[in-house]
């Protein structure tokens, strides 16, 4: 496979950031050049473990997801009967919990847990990002932050779905869909926390807002809370659950939220750039893929030509050489100084 510009850039950055040694790079170069140009052939022929093959989410993210979805669903189930209190189903539901006054207390308690989960998440992502920056391992393309490439990926994916393109775009650890979902959820959470707190602490909010905005703010919040909740619930029910449970290839469920691992075929199909990183850092994955490509007769016919065109490996080897020489010079300098 001749690597695309995006793949070149991503893999080159990763090799440098993680200082992948020459012998691994040589192996990686070989496996990359063996890969067929049609990526579908790869993900259609690999074996996947339904509970996941390749690491994706830390235990913190998994706990945060558990906290978020349990509080979210329970908040929705307690919030809806408060909002639609006249509905035929709301009265017995509230009665079941001990009356609407109890439902309200439960709703507020859960809201506190949801806020704590948000704070926990912010600490994790900000702390984790800072740590990566300090270690020189941060790559914006690998993060959840939206970049221009996401728009290109979206357009290319639409073309693939419409049958106008042979392969899905090479997407990174987080594809455009996940970024939309993440920021929609983040926006939704913020709206819910602000609007919810404006019901709980109206005096506080109105004391800090300008007079012209204060009354409109409260009315806006009164509209926003149920609208946003309903939208979020419908998006979760129709989109998120579809994507992680019902979509072909994901049915009956993706185990990632529990195991933190993604199936190999999914990784290659939707997160090819991240898969390249896995290949770079996991010798056993390279061995496995080599075996599959050879046994299934998928080794690229243009392997030699491709290998010559993938300049990044040569560049990286050169870079390692320079680093080593610099290191040696540093050692000599240190020796002289001492």
């Amino acid at each position: 496979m001749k690597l695309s510009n995006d793949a070149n850039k991503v893999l080159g950055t990763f090799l440098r950031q993680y200082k992948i040694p020459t012998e691994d790079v040589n192996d990686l170069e070989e496996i990359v050049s063996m890969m067929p140009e049609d990526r579908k052939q790869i993900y259609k022929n690999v074996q996947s473990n339904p509970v996941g093959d390749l690491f994706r989410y830390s235990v913190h993210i998994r706990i945060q997801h558990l906290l978020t979805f349990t509080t979210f669903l329970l908040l929705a189930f307690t919030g809806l009967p408060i909002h639609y209190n006249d509905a035929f189903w709301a009265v017995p539901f509230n009665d079941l919990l001990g009356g609407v006054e109890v439902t309200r207390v439960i709703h507020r308690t859960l809201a506190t847990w949801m806020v704590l989960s948000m704070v926990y998440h912010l600490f994790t992502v900000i702390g984790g990002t800072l740590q990566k920056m300090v270690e020189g391992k941060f790559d914006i393309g690998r993060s959840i932050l939206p970049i221009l490439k996401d728009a290109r990926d979206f357009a290319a994916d639409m073309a693939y779905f419409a049958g106008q393109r042979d392969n899905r775009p090479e997407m990174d650890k987080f594809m455009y869909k996940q970024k939309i979902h993440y920021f929609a959820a983040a926006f939704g959470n913020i709206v819910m926390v602000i609007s919810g707190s404006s019901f709980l602490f109206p005096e506080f909010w109105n004391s800090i807002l300008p007079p012209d905005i204060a009354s409109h703010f409260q009315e806006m919040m009164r509209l926003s809370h149920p609208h946003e909740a309903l939208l979020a619930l419908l998006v979760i029910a129709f989109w998120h659950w579809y994507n992680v449970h019902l979509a072909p290839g994901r049915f009956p469920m993706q185990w990632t939220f529990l195991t933190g691992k993604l199936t190999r075929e999914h990784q290659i199909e939707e997160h090819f750039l991240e898969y390249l990183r896995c290949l770079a850092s996991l010798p056993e994955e390279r061995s496995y893929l080599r075996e599959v490509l050879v046994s299934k007769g998928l080794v690229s016919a243009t392997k030699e030509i491709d290998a010559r065109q993938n300049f990044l490996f040569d560049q990286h080897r050169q870079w390692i050489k320079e680093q080593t020489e610099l290191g040696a010079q540093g050692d000599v300098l240190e020796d002289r100084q001492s």
Partner: protein
Amino acid sequence: MCHKYPKMGRVDDEGFQKAYYVIPEVFSKTVHRNVPCRDCHYYIKQLPHRPVKEGVRCDRECHSIENPSTGKPFSHKPIYDTFKKSVHGREKLETGLDNDKPYCITCHTNPLYNKEEEAPPKKITDRCVVCHEDEKFAFKWYNHTSRRIREVKRDTQDIIKLCSRCHADQELLARHKKDADDTGREIGEKYTIAAESYQNSFHGKVAKYGNKQVANCLSCHASPDNYYMSVHELRPSRDPLSPVNKNNRVKTCRQCHKTADANYAAIDPHPTDEKELNEFNYYAEIIYGIVGDTALALLVGLSLFETIGRKRDGIAWVLRNGTTWRGRSRRKRKSA
């Protein structure tokens, strides 16, 4: 006399059975038990009397009851006169639109003394009779004062129900709105949606759930300076003396919301999304609806589109034997 007989009654001109029986055992336990019939039913001049067309007026003097503070015959006239000047004020035999307005007996009944008021504790009456030799006086005094010392306000739900009897009657409201429009009379802009919009407010919802502390109609519309007087002289919000007049709202809100300021008082306690009354809410509601529906439609559309696209390359629904890509590709174009 005659009304103590259980079968006292008749079928009126419209065919309704009317009972005129006054149960002596019940009347004797009411707050008006010491007022002779003709103190209120003053128009009865002869017995048996002719069909009654006037009804009770509460501004009469009770010649049999002396007001101990003035020595004059007792009367509800002062509060009656106050009420007449209020936005609800009307004469007893009012006709036309004013007939829709409440009269004393719309809100007030002839309440019974309750069990606790009926039976004064012995330790109190024992002390009274030391000076007040007539034990009956001590009992009456206790009935009277204990009832008034104790809080006898209607509870939140009862007040909402009481006000809603008229303020949620759409026909009545439409009648008055039309008249105000026709005659150029000033009328509150939320006059027709007062009850409905309250029900949609936080106060209304919490009240509906049975909370007794939450603000009801009179918590805001009656003055906190003298609640009992004020409920009889309710004023429209445009009146500078009304507690809900824009200049008095902060003080009114602070009865419950201690830190309320002018910003807080600007929150609308009668929220509505009617275009004429709140254009901001009206358009915000529409925009929210459009944005929500569009987002959902796009996302569901994307899921379907994606499924069709991936199915074309042979994805299956269940991960089995290590792969989900078990179907045959139906792609027409040759793969690169």
